[in-house]
């Protein structure tokens, strides 16, 4: 018995190394390269606590969305509406706060809750379109992406809502215990919850079974429609959460935020080794994938490479990650 357990543990250790080893190695390589180049430019300290916290803080918002997206992609689906949902959730809460009375924090909480509720509704609508009406997720969420973006702009007449009360910015700019950004803490909580949900619950198991083979899952009694519907609902809620974090950080309800962010999030998830054809993927992978992308951007900034150069490099990294996955598959 103990023998079997030991063998199984060795097996899963080996598989984890095989899955994440190259990615983690790439991350450390990045860190080393930027540190060295930084030093040669008389600009040391890239690998300091402060920079690393900054990197985490920057990836926190994408990260929250990426957790939801990982679930969706593992089922073999995709959600293109998350960028628009971010903006819509943000302006919705900002609108509530602006129309609110004092005390401000009551209305802020109300706004956040309303936005999260709307995010869940939007996600669950996607889920119903995909399961009950059998619309391919790409199309269903493409439609939602457009409509939600429009709704956000209609709500604010296309203009940002500002200023927001200072309490509102706690989510995006606040710090706990002096040093720890609230958004990083939130990100870690979402990551941990996502990890447990995917690996240690029936819901997570069913998510992976559906992505691996939907028909086999159905014939094994997996409630395929309900699980998929929940997955999209989760993704919608997390997209709005990310939108609230960003709105809070900016201090204004801007309907233009999140444009194109759905693609950056998908990129991070894919770099993290989650397969777009479904069935294969992990939260840990998504976390490392996010860090690889985020360290790359910050590092390039650090050594003075501007946005355009960053875009080119990011493209190459995505290709390299997918090629690496292909090689491992064989």
């Amino acid at each position, binding site marked *: 018995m103990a023998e079997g357990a030991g063998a199984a543990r060795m097996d899963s250790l080996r598989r984890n190394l095989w899955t994440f080893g190259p990615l983690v190695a790439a991350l450390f390589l990045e860190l080393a390269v930027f540190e060295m180049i930084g030093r040669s430019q008389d600009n040391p300290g890239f690998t300091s606590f402060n920079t690393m916290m900054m990197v985490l803080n920057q990836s926190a918002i994408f990260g929250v969305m990426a957790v939801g997206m990982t679930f969706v992609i593992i089922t073999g689906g995709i959600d293109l509406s998350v960028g628009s949902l971010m903006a819509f959730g943000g302006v919705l809460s900002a609108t509530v706060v602006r129309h609110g009375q004092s005390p401000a924090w009551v209305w802020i909480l109300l706004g956040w809750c309303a936005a999260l509720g709307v995010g869940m509704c939007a996600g669950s609508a996607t889920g119903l379109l995909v399961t009950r009406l059998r619309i391919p997720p790409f199309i269903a969420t493409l439609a939602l992406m457009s409509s939600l973006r429009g709704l956000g702009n209609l709500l604010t007449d296309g203009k940002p809502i500002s200023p927001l009360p200072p309490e509102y910015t706690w989510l995006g700019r606040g710090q706990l215990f002096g040093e720890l950004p609230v958004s990083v803490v939130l990100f870690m909580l979402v990551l941990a919850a996502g990890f447990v949900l995917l690996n240690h*619950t029936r819901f997570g198991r069913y998510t992976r079974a559906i992505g691996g083979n939907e028909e086999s*899952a159905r014939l094994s009694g997996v409630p395929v429609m309900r699980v998929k519907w929940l997955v999209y609902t989760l993704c919608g809620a997390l997209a709005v959460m990310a939108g609230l974090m960003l709105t809070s950080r900016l201090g204004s309800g801007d309907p233009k935020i999140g444009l194109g962010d759905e693609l950056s999030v998908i990129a991070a998830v894919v770099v993290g080794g989650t397969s777009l054809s479904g*069935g294969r993927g992990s939260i840990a992978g998504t976390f490392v994938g996010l860090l690889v992308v985020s360290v790359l951007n910050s590092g390039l900034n650090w050594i003075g490479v501007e946005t355009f150069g960053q875009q080119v490099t990011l493209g190459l990294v995505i290709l390299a990650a997918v090629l690496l996955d292909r090689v491992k598959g064989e």
Partner: protein
Amino acid sequence: MADLLLEMRGITKQFPGVLALDDVSLDLREGEVHCLLGENGAGKSTLMKILAGAQPADAGDILIGGRPAAVTSPARARELGVSMIYQEFNLSPFLSVAENIFLGREPRIGKTPFIDGARLRRDAEEVLRHMGVTLDVRLPVNRLSVAQMQMVEIAKAVSVNARILVMDEPSATLTDHELASLFTLIGELRGRGMGILYISHRLEEVFQIGDRATVMRDGRHVATRDVADLTREDIIRMMVGRELTEEFPKVSLPRGAERLRVEGLTRDGLFHDVGFSLHAGEIVGLTGLVGSRRTEVVRAIFGADRLSAGRVFVDGREVAVSSPRDAIAHGVGLLTEDRKNQGLVLGMSVRENITLANLGELVRGIFVKGGEERRVAEDFVRELQIKTPSVEQAVQLLSGGTQQKVVLARWLFTNAGILMFDEPTRGVDVGAKTEIFRLMNALLERGAAVLMVSSELPEVLGMCDRILVMHEGRLAGELSRAEATQERIMQLATGGGRRHG
């Protein structure tokens, strides 16, 4: 002696952890059908993949037409005159028959890049006429039957002037009639000097069309003999390496209480008014020709497809089954015919596949109890002797018979009292077949009832207490074990047996 088309000498292939082929030699003469036999995992497919250039050998030589040949890729194999027809066809579903036959070699108008459609069709018709096959070459391939798709695959091989044709289990999905025409065609090709390597699990076929047979076991060459010098028992003994005492280990138990009864099952356009019952302790066979809708009936009982009409009773109580989930809740299980696409989640581990249908049993709150789950999986691996290095192994890396045992373990874990097996032994070797039958017996002893859908009459006759025969979507009759013979089943299956006429 006819000339040698092909010689494979000392082929060796190592996979991580397994020696898949150990110094295997094989030759093929002009104008012969050479059957390649062996259990799953014996190395037949690997050997053929090496011949077809899909995988490199670690050691050994291949001689084609007496000259050493480096088969480095499937394209190179084709140039050397080797064509391979896999079980899963390599056809493009929305292209026409003609386009598929000449895919990659389309005739063009002069030197322009445009395809000469008229000539394409003429050439394709010519190839098919030569084979004695009538088929509209303009039809898209997805409108063809499996047998017709196979003809298109053969036509592809013929049109590139292949001298060596490898067929991997060509008969697995054919009806008897289609099989007869396949054999006629194979005879025709043999007469023209083509050499055919024929892989099959159905031993009868070896005696019908084989000239010589090679048996492999555990990656080694066991023997090559003229079929005329072999008996069925010889082959089985060489394949499993021991005497197989009982191919069908039938046990007869007293018939228990009724577990399942269905009445008037109808799915419009597919089957009509199907009714029967299953009792504890018995195996009931459901047989008929391909297309008689046996699979459709069991899928509908299981809730995988919708019924237009009909009632289902479990243990005497009427139940509403609108999804597989409902069926499982009522203790009904279905082992599907196509375990790769409708049974297993190939990328998941043995453990996850075993527990998938009854995960609720292993849950506290929302969490899966990891340790207990692993113990359950390990117990089944031991009990069913599932050959896997650990329960964390992905099932896609296991052989066909082993995968079938994983599916079986899944249903054993649900404690289903009513189990429907759809072609449980398809693609499973002789040794594993017997093990599967023994497991069925074990289920019966625990008070379960088994419905076995099968096209293999010997196993239906060997294992079933009663036999239901379907013909064109209706139950054509029921035979008891005592009265059933191959002839009577066939009579009912072909619509010639109105007993109550």
